[in-house]
């Protein structure tokens, strides 16, 4: 059997396993609540691995891996913000879940409408968070193209691979909704957590001899890779803080909370998710850290994970790294696709046409799954810059949702004027800072996102102290305080 044939066989076998498990554990979709958030029925293990699957992106094997080899330990910001975002999710899991259950919330926009009493703000908030967050779809679809091409020695082209795999994901999201996405995330999350960590550690040992030898060789080759250097200071602070705040605020995190059968089921994921995250991130990015010292290091560093897998383990290891990266990309793609279709259907279409009933919105959500998937696939076939650069811009913008949501959950005086004005001012600074960096040179190195979030929080607090608070806010806080949860303790 030739090299490409071995790699392709491994990838196809993995697809069959995915399809069978999703089919066996899937259920017929009968309502918007079922399609969007699985009827709030997921046990802690399903929720945990679908969260891990949704959170850890395929791009970590491509753009982040390339940055580990070029920028060194700076690329490990992804490990830090993954854990710190979990902390923030832990803080808000109980109020978000309880309000979701009592007031039938299904999206982040629903929470904004409930908290601030404005459908107009919900619409604009949902639209902007969608615009800032949806590039993940394109990043992940693009990642799929890289993976398939690299893992099959180029015998399957970038666009063909991207289209075939993405259509598979779109199909199971369309047919099975949130449950299919979560079950897929469970299979894919377990794959790249357990198999992934073992396989990548094996590659580290095979390539360098172990961790001490890895650090010795990197220190000899370029000790700057073991320090933040010029990328430290305010830039490092800006990246970690904006990714932490922006990371938790993405609509997909809210879907994870609403899907669980209790807030304890959401929180229980901290027994696995952070440790799995550290292992996944640390092994992958460590492997990439010293690769640039090899003379045959590829000209395109984004393919270096596949290059080293083939060099050290041949076609079988290449196929294995291929399915790990595909697992990570597919689980994120399905999670974003499912949440995005619900967001547009409910927060945008449902808000614009308030007379539409839930049955019609359910049909919209399903159709939108295909429409969003198709548009994203088309965009992904065009030329785009390094995947990590795109994600940093996105986080800088989506962080502006943090004050309205997070502070609004814990501070009664947060009100509509403050939340809306703060959000818009914050978005302005983020966009200007990213697209016209010279205009924020006065800030002395802080990013547009951090400047924006500073003014955003300031405005929220000032308006909270000056303007009248929302009439129903006491009722909402009392609901959270007095609600008695039932913990089922189920795993799936």
């Amino acid at each position, binding site marked *: 059997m030739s090299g490409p044939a071995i790699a392709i066989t491994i990838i196809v076998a993995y697809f069959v396993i995915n399809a069978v498990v999703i089919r066996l554990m899937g259920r017929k979709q009968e309502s918007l609540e079922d399609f969007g958030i699985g009827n709030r029925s997921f046990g802690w293990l399903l929720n945990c691995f679908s969260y891990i699957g949704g959170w850890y992106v395929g791009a970590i094997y491509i753009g982040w891996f390339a940055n580990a080899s070029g920028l060194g330990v700076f690329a490990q910001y992804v490990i*830090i913000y993954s*854990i710190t975002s979990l902390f923030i999710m*832990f803080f808000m899991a109980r109020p978000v879940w309880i309000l979701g259950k009592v007031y039938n919330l299904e999206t982040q926009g629903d929470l904004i409408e409930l908290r601030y009493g404005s459908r107009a703000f919900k619409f604009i908030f949902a639209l902007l968070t969608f615009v800032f967050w949806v590039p993940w779809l394109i990043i992940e679809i693009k990642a799929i193209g890289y993976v398939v091409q690299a893992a099959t020695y180029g015998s399957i082209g970038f666009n063909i691979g991207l289209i075939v795999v993405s259509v598979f994901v779109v199909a199971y999201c369309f047919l099975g909704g949130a449950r299919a996405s979560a079950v897929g995330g469970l299979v894919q999350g377990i794959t790249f957590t357990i198999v992934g960590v073992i396989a990548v550690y094996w590659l580290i040992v095979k390539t360098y001899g172990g961790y*001490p030898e890895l650090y010795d060789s990197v220190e000899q080759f370029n000790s700057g890779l073991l320090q*933040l250097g010029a990328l430290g*200071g305010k830039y490092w*602070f800006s990246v970690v803080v904006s990714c932490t705040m922006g990371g938790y605020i993405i609509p997909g995190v809210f879907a994870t909370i609403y899907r669980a059968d209790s807030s304890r089921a959401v*929180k229980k994921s*901290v*027994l696995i998710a952070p440790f799995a995250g550290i292992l996944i991130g640390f092994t992958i990015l460590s492997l990439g850290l010293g690769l640039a010292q090899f003379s045959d290091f590829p000209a395109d560093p984004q393919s270096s994970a596949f290059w080293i897998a083939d060099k050290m383990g041949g076609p079988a290891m290449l196929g294995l790294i291929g399915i790990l990266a595909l697992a990570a990309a597919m689980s994120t793609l399905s999670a974003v696709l499912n949440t995005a279709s619900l967001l547009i259907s409910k927060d945008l279409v449902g808000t614009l046409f308030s007379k539409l009933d839930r049955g019609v919105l359910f049909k919209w959500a399903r159709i939108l799954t295909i429409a969003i998937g198709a548009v994203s696939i088309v965009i992904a076939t065009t030329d785009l810059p390094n995947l990590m650069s795109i994600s940093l811009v996105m986080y800088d913008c989506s962080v502006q949702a943090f004050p309205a949501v997070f502070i609004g959950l814990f501070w009664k005086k947060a009100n509509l004027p403050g939340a809306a004005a703060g959000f818009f001012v914050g978005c302005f600074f983020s966009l200007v800072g990213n697209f016209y960096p010279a205009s924020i040179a006065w800030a002395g190195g802080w990013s547009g996102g951090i400047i924006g979030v500073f003014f955003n929080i300031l405005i929220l607090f000032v308006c909270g102290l000056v303007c009248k608070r929302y009439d129903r806010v006491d009722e909402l806080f009392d609901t959270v305080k007095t609600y008695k949860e039932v913990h089922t303790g189920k795993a799936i």
Partner: protein
Amino acid sequence: MTRKGLYTLSAIIYIALIALITLPPVTAALDRVTPRILGMPCMQFFLIMVPVALAVWLAVWFLWECKIEDREAAKAEAQTGGEAK
């Protein structure tokens, strides 16, 4: 400890650990290759130590909060039972 106390303690731990790894003057001091700590370059050690510490605290926080919730539920049940009698 009450739930509120536990959340306050968690917030303090969280901010302290994040500050350790992000505040420019602190990271400037840590951003070096030597000394090696547990076999890792200095900066690499702190880049891993902070997430591990946060992960351990998250697990402790979850288990502690479950105990508080279960205790509160048992207390509420006992009160309800007492009233019924």
